[in-house]
Structure formats: C-alpha cells, structure tokens
C-alpha cells in the first residue's frame, strides 16, 4: 500500500512538471526593438533630378480643353527621347494663386514653365519673376498682357475662332435671328478676343440680335443654370453662342430639359470630344475645333529648341476648324478629332 502511494505521488510530480514545461511553450510577449526607420512622406514631391527636363505647368482651372492639352502633353512626353517631368498645378481661376505657383516653380528651379493664364492683366509679376530667374515661360491657349516678355505663345487666335463661329451662326440663321451669348471668365485673353470677334461678326449683320449675354466662366454647370434661368424667364433665342464647348454642353442640357432643342440651337468653340459627338448626334449644332494636337506639337518643338540653347518663335498659331454635321465626317479632320 505504501508503495502504491509513493508511485502515485511520483506520477503526480511528473504530470506537474510536464504541465509547467508545456506552459512555457505559449508565446511570451517578444520584444523586437525597432530602429528609427526612415519615414516616407506621403503627398510630398520628391527631389528634382537634374538630368530630367522639368516643366512646371499651371492651368487656369479644370477645363475640358485643358485636359485635352494635358493628355497630349503626357503622350508626347512618353514618346520623347529624353526624360520629361511635369509638375501640374491648378490655378483655380485665381491670379494670385497662379503667381504663387509660378514663383514656386521658380524656387524649385524648373527648366521651363508652361502657363495657361487665368487672367490677361494680372499675371505680370509672374512673367517678371520668370524672366528674372532666367526660366523660359511659354503661355498656352491664351495670352497675357505682357506677352512680349514671355518666351513664346502657343495656341490659336481666339478672335479667329469667334469669327469662324459667327460665320457658322450667320449661315445657319440665314442672316436673321436672335442670339444669346455665353462668355468665359471675364478678363482672359480667350474671352476678350472672342468677345471682340463676336462684336465684329455680329456688328456686320444688324439682323442678328443679341438678346442676352452672361459669362458662365467656362463651367458647364453655370451655363446650365444661366440658360435654364433664361428659359424660365422666357428668353428663348434662336441660337446660343457659347465661347467654349463646356458651356455649350451645359446650355444644351438646359435646352433639352426644357424640350426646346429644336428651337434653340447651341454652338460652341474648342471641339472637345463630347461636343464633337454631340454635333454628330444632332444635339449641338456646331463647334469650332481647336487643334490641340498641333498646338502641343509646337510646344514640344519649343522644348527642343530651348534644350538646344536656341530661342523659339514668339508665337505659334494653329488655325481653327469649323465643325458642323456637314463636314464632321471628313477624313482629313478625323485624325485630329481624337485629341
């Protein structure tokens, strides 16, 4: 009997030892001291590498035509045989902001500045700053007042676009009718020139009456609101002439909502893809195509010239092309229409 008690005690001891042994297998909290690792900044620009060709781009705002230019810039940059890096900035239609942005570019010592001005008169200090720093400044799409102090201008003659549109409208209206005008941001070269063009072309024909005119600041939504208000207040012109396709589409939306798309025809400028499609479908009556592809081609020509130490031309102008359902399927134009 004594022996069995001893035996069971021994067994108990063995059990306890086994238990304690297995307990140390449960993972204790291990310490792995971390080193002070390098922190990656999020949303911060990397250092600029000198072997790249760095271009600072300041847009007037977010516009469809601007996006076309941007897409083309990127495409051309991929096909170029040197490394190009763009720094994109949105001026948000604010001159002060754009000036700051350009000064920022200068501080970052970019190789070239592309400026899509949001104002005609107010960007002088940016131009001066770029000149002082010796950085070439190319204005795109529209000009600035101090254009001769800029390195170059690449774009089209906006007055020409207004004249082209005016002619289209004239032809459509068969020399008589009422017109409402949607203008872009007041004070931009495009708006100023196009307005001047309108004055010219409409002044030629007194049977064309302008019954309303309001700036829609290149915004589709604002154009919609304004046209909707016009219609609500009984202002129904035969034609709405819009200084840009973005506004034209907004106007078209309002007109279609009111069910008046047959009575009120909308014309735009720029030849944005949606507008072109709309012309094809019979929504918009016509648009004036701005050849972004050729413009960007000129821009890259400037790049090459500047890189090789030369001085580019003071301006590179690309002609506008009138588009309506008659010539929209023309093969010559087709290739350009994709940009």
């Amino acid at each position, binding site marked *: 009997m004594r022996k069995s008690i001893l035996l069971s005690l021994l067994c108990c001891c063995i059990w306890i030892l086994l238990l304690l042994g297995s307990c140390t297998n449960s993972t204790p909290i291990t310490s792995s001291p971390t080193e002070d690792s390098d922190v990656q900044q999020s949303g911060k620009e990397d250092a600029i590498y000198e072997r790249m060709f760095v271009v600072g781009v300041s847009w007037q705002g977010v516009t469809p035509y601007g996006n076309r230019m941007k897409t083309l810039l990127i495409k051309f940059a991929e096909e170029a045989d040197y490394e190009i890096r763009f720094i994109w900035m949105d001026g948000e239609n604010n001159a002060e902001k754009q000036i700051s942005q350009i000064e920022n570019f200068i501080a970052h010592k970019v190789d070239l500045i592309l400026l899509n001005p949001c104002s005609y008169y107010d960007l002088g200090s940016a131009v001066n700053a770029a000149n002082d720093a010796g950085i070439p400044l190319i204005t795109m799409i529209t000009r600035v007042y101090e254009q001769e102090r800029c390195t170059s201008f690449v774009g089209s003659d906006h007055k020409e676009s207004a004249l082209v549109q005016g002619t289209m409208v004239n032809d459509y209206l068969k020399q008589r009718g009422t017109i409402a005008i949607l203008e872009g941001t007041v*004070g931009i070269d495009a708006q100023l020139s196009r307005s001047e063009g309108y004055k010219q072309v409409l002044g030629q024909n007194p049977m064309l009456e302008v019954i309303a005119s309001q700036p829609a*600041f290149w*915004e589709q*939504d*604002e154009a919609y609101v304004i046209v909707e*208000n016009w219609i609500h*207040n009984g*202002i129904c012109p035969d034609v709405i002439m819009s200084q840009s396709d973005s506004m034209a589409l907004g106007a078209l939306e309002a007109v279609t909502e009111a069910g008046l798309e047959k009575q009120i025809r909308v014309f735009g400028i720029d030849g944005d893809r949606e507008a072109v499609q709309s012309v094809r479908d019979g929504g918009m009556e016509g648009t004036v195509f701005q050849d972004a592809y050729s413009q960007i081609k000129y821009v890259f020509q400037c790049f090459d010239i500047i890189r090789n130490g030369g001085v580019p031309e003071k301006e590179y102008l690309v002609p506008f092309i009138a588009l309506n359902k008659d010539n929209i399927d023309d093969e010559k134009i087709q290739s350009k229409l994709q940009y």
Partner: protein
Amino acid sequence: MERIRKTRLIGGACICIILISLWMVMRPFGFLNPDDGYRYVVGVCQQNLQTDIQLAFKSDVEAAAAQRDDVNVLFYSAGGDLEKQMQQLRTLLEQRVDCIIVSAESPESLEPAMKEVLDGGVSLIVMGTNKSQVACDVLIRTDYFEIGKAAGTYFLQHSSPICFLEIQGNPRVQRIRELQMGFRSIIDDVPNILSPYVIVGYDSYMVTQQRIVQSGMIDAMPPITGVFAHSSEMALAAADIFKTYGEYPRILSVGGKTDGNSIAVGDSLEVVISVPSGGAEAFSFAEELMGGKTVPNEYTLPITLLNVKDSENSSACQEVLQ
C-alpha cells in the same frame, strides 16, 4: 442504508465545493463588473468642414453630446471627397460604433457604404433634403423647398418692385434645386418681381464676389435690388461687394449662425432664414436609437426666420413660418 446516503451526501458536497472553487479560480477575477469604457459611441461623418452649416452642425452635436458623459462622439470630415467619406464610413463600422450620423450634399452617392453600415448592425441617421431617398434608420429632412418658398414669401411681403439676383450653390446638388424651385414657386406668379439673374457662387466668398463683378451684376439694368443667396458665405460676399460699389440691395440668406454674428451687420443684410443645422436633433435621435427606443423613420427640421437687425433679441422676434 443510512450510512451510504450520508457518505454519498458528504462526498457530493465535497465534490461540489471543489468544482465551485475550481470554476471561480478559472474565471478571471471581476467578471461580474460592468464595462468601464464609453457605453455609447456615435460616429459623425461630414462631407466637409468648410461651410458654415457643416461647422454649425458639428458644434451643435458637440454641445448636445456634452450633456451626457457616457457617450463619445467621433468626428470625421472628408474635405469634399466622396470616396474618402465612404472610406470613413467603413472605418467607423470597423470601430464598431453604436450609431453613425451622415451629413452629405447628396447622400444617395454614399449608398454602397451606408448599406454596409446597416448590414453591420449599426444604426444610421442621414441628413437629407426633402427628396432624398436612402435606406437608413432615421432620415432627417431639411425641407429646402419650403425654405425657398419662405424666402419668396418674405420678399413678397416686404418689398416690390424688385429685381432679383439669385446666388446658387453647386447646381448639381439636390438642395439647391429645391431651394430654387421653392423660391420660384412663390415669385414666378408675381408680375412685378423679376428674377432674371442667376449666378453660381459655389458656397465660396471669393468666387461669389468674382462672379458678381465679372458677370456685370454691379451695373445690371434694371439694377438689382434684391439678392437671394443660398448660403451665408455667399450672402456675405454679395453684401460686401455691393457695399464696395455703393449699392445696398436687400439680401436674404439661407442659413447662418443663429445669433447672426457670423454675418456682418450692415444695412444691407436683412434677414437670415435660419436653417437648423440638425445637429441637436440628430444627436437626440442617436440617443434614442442607442437606448433601444423606437424612432420615426423620417423627421423634418423646423425652420425659422430671423431678422438680423434685431439680432440681440433674435428670439423675441422670431417669425416661425412653419
């Protein structure tokens, strides 16, 4: 027999004592205590914190929550980014909050994330407009149509003839359209009230001023004698810019801090239609939902008209139009 029973009894009692002590030792100590942390957590997800109305909403919720010390409120704002707001809703769901309050211009665009929230068993309160249709536990409506009508009615009652400038927020947003429709429903039928001008101010002070100037509203013919601004920032911008040019149209603003201090008191700024931010109501619905009480599926916020000129005694001359 007696002995056997006694043995069994005592043996059973011993075993019971041993088992009970084992069980008590095996459970963690203090297992009967209640939780120490916040009993309720409310998540507030706002589209942005830029506009006055959103700031007012947040401070109203904070004030209401300060009354209770067992509720924690988490505030998230998405800076206008819808994707980010949906991500924040998902984060709140992951944090297992008890109730989520969502404030966005178009709550319909947040539906995927809101559905996940409802599926996750979290109560959902949404701030919306008259026409909003979303699946949630409580939809707090602000009837902008009525507000528009109230604005129209006010001008109808107080001045004529008049030529209006309407300053809109983002026209794609439901509440703006309702405001406009409400406003028009009153003044359209009145022949001597003209409202030929509409501009879009995007709820921004600077944009409004730029638009007013560049659209030629200053020199408009006939001159503008009344302004209906969809938000207080835009009303203030209009007041300042017209004042700069020496003009003083009557300005009616939708929304603004109820004490009127956010609006520079000037002769031009007449009246504020005070739109309650809905923060206090949202929080009280949240309290009831978390407490397990039944709540109505919809609720419409009341609106009040405030005369800024008497802003110190604003409560004394409130005209409740609803």
